[in-house]
């Protein structure tokens, strides 16, 4: 029996060695490691953001004078670093936090990336940013909403995208504007899916509503995978709030609109907290029954000839679909990161971190509706903001704030034609 067990160990070692022969690192340039869910439940968003990041890298790496003063658009590559091009290394964490941690480690130690971007799900951002903090590698959070990703006293973590409290404040500013112009808003209702995204945004809205003394008639958490939502709609029908805010993913958003039509329930206004309402499949599915539904988006395609319009055309050519708000916010964080890399002038982590900390992009340098990109001591972009858009016909029109509006707000919403 002795010899065969040695044989067994040798066979195992051989097969393990074969599996370990993973790709070796590529040629040097500024490498950005990007962690997104390319499979699993959030694969659609991951893929869309991946295409957006690839497009952004193309824009930076090649000269695009027609894109106005978008940072690094006119030039090819990073001028302060001898035209070094950006090289993207994508990894798929499948929404699994421990895999995200493992892949973040791999990007830093194996692929020797200079900076990290990512993680979409808050759970994965938590673990990946912890790795970046331990290794001292700048990490730009492109999308995750959970508040305390940047609240843990980290030096190396930055977040370009607005967080839950920004959205909540935007809604409250909108409601106070509406009240000033005479519209009665007695109470609002919040319907949120019960994972980290929905919970953190709903919590923020409840807190901000208290400050803006707007009463919350009811808050209804639900599980996104539930097949039937009539119970929630009937609860809304009973409470009769003026405005209902939906913090939901794609399928549930569509289902809510259909169920509301089926149960003949139409509040004065419905606001979707992006995600579900911004999904490209939302409008075709419910355009005829959800006329006037509002949504928040920091991204507006804008008028033909504008920088945003051209970017959207380039994205459509690449993917066949319009750029959605989630991928656009990731793209904006990518540009802010590229701009900081250029200003740092070197791939030394401490220099890159300092450059990121001093970032101060003006609204006209952005493709998004932020008031700018400027990071506070916790790494959160304090100038992040968002527009409110409304479904007119089969397109979202920018209706608030008035200074950027391209169409008039319809209040109350029409919903479905009688």
């Amino acid at each position, binding site marked *: 029996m002795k*010899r065969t067990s040695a044989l067994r160990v040798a066979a195992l070692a051989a097969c393990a060695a074969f599996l370990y022969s993973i790709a070796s690192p590529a040629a040097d340039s500024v490498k950005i490691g990007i962690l997104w869910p390319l499979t699993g439940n959030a694969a659609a968003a991951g893929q869309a953001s991946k295409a957006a990041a690839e497009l952004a890298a193309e824009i930076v790496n090649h000269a695009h004078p027609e894109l106005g003063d978008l940072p690094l658009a006119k030039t090819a590559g990073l001028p302060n670093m001898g035209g070094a091009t950006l090289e993207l290394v994508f990894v798929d964490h499948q929404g699994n936090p*421990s895999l995200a941690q493992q892949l973040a480690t791999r990007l830093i130690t194996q692929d020797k990336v200079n900076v990290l971007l990512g993680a979409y799900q808050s759970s994965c951002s938590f673990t990946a940013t912890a790795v970046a903090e331990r290794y001292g590698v700048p990490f730009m959070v492109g999308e995750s909403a959970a508040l305390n990703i940047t609240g843990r006293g980290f030096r190396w973590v930055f977040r370009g995208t607005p967080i839950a409290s920004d959205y909540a404040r935007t809604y409250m500013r909108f409601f106070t504007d509406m009240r000033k112009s005479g519209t009665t808003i007695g109470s609002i209702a919040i319907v949120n899916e019960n994972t980290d995204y929905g919970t953190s945004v709903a919590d923020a809205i409840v807190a901000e509503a208290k400050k803006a003394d707007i009463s919350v008639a009811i808050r209804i958490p639900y599980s996104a995978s539930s097949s039937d939502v009539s119970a929630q709609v009937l609860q809304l029908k009973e409470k009769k709030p003026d405005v209902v805010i939906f913090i939901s993913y794609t399928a549930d958003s569509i289902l809510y609109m259909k169920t509301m039509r089926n149960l003949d329930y139409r509040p004065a206004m419905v606001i979707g907290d992006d995600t579900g309402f911004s999904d490209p499949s939302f409008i075709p599915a419910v355009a005829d029954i959800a006329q006037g539904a509002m949504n928040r988006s920091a991204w507006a395609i804008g008028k033909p000839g504008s920088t945003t319009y051209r970017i959207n055309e380039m994205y459509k050519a690449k993917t066949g679909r319009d750029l959605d708000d989630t991928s656009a916010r990731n793209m904006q964080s990518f540009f802010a990161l590229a701009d900081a890399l250029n200003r740092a002038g070197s791939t030394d982590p401490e220099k890159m971190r300092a450059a990121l900390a001093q970032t101060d992009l003006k609204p006209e340098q952005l493709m998004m509706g932020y008031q700018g990109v400027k990071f506070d001591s916790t790494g959160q972009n304090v100038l992040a903001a968002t527009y409110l858009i409304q479904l007119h016909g089969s397109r979202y029109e920018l209706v608030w704030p008035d200074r950027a509006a391209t169409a008039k707000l319809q209040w109350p919403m029409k919903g479905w034609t009688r």
Partner: protein
Amino acid sequence: MRYGAVTLWAALLAYPLVLYNQFYWDIGVGLLLAAITASAWNIVGGYAGQVSVGHAMFFGIGAYAPLLVYHLWKLPPVAGVPLAIGLSLALAVIIGVPTLRLKGHYFSMATIAIAELIRIFVGTWDLVGAAIGLQGPAVGRGWWDLTFRSEIPYYYIFLGVLAVLLSVTAVVERGRFGYYLRAIKAGERAARSLGVPVQQTKLKALMLSAAFTSVAGSLYAIKTGFIDPESGFGILVSVQMVIVAALGGAGTRLGPLVGALVLVPAQTAINTWFGGGGTGLTYILYGGIILVLARFEPGGLHELWHRAAPLLRRRARAA
């Protein structure tokens, strides 16, 4: 067998020094964690034949307790490990006494339902961070926080725990308790007629298994520094334990370790080659492996080896 086991342990000890690279250390740690979790499941699932598909309930408790003591009282996470073991033992008794009366499919289904019940409940419980989950200290306040920059300390801690678990399994295997477990798996009615106290033995096995599964959960939480309902109590956590143990050979001492040695690197390789490409191949691979395993060799690699060994020896002698 002695000679084989010694070389295997020597290889595991030397592994991080031979493959001196962060990435392989991380695979190593992942591999050990999978081996610990599967070996813990193996005590009740493999030896006693009580196929629990809800062991994530113990893994989750093990993972949540350390981060909870840190979250609430700023204690080092490792202080939560005894609490986790206690809670897991209590849960094992509470759900064990009624469900261990059930047989085969009923038992598996009851464990699935209970694990799902706990996952959804934890997801709505604010004290434990509801859906957002809990985070551990990202940067350690001292060595006691066990937040190491490199993976090597984790690797050897995990290896130590695996060694303890496998030696406990060895003691169990050789003693009356182990024989009684295998008798229960082979035929409960016959075992009872020989005086085997079936219910108490199954419960003891479940408690021992729950304690070690909870420790595995704590190790995961302390290393990852994050836990949420899905990664703690999700059904894929339970399924992974069963696959790793079954692939290696459920009901054998080194089966789960062998299963982890094959499955974890294969999974990482798939993630690396196809990960970026965005196809869920890993789980298609998992499904395929289990199907083939169940269809052709439920005994796993261990059984295959037993069948192949005589042939190899004969061919070796003939050559």
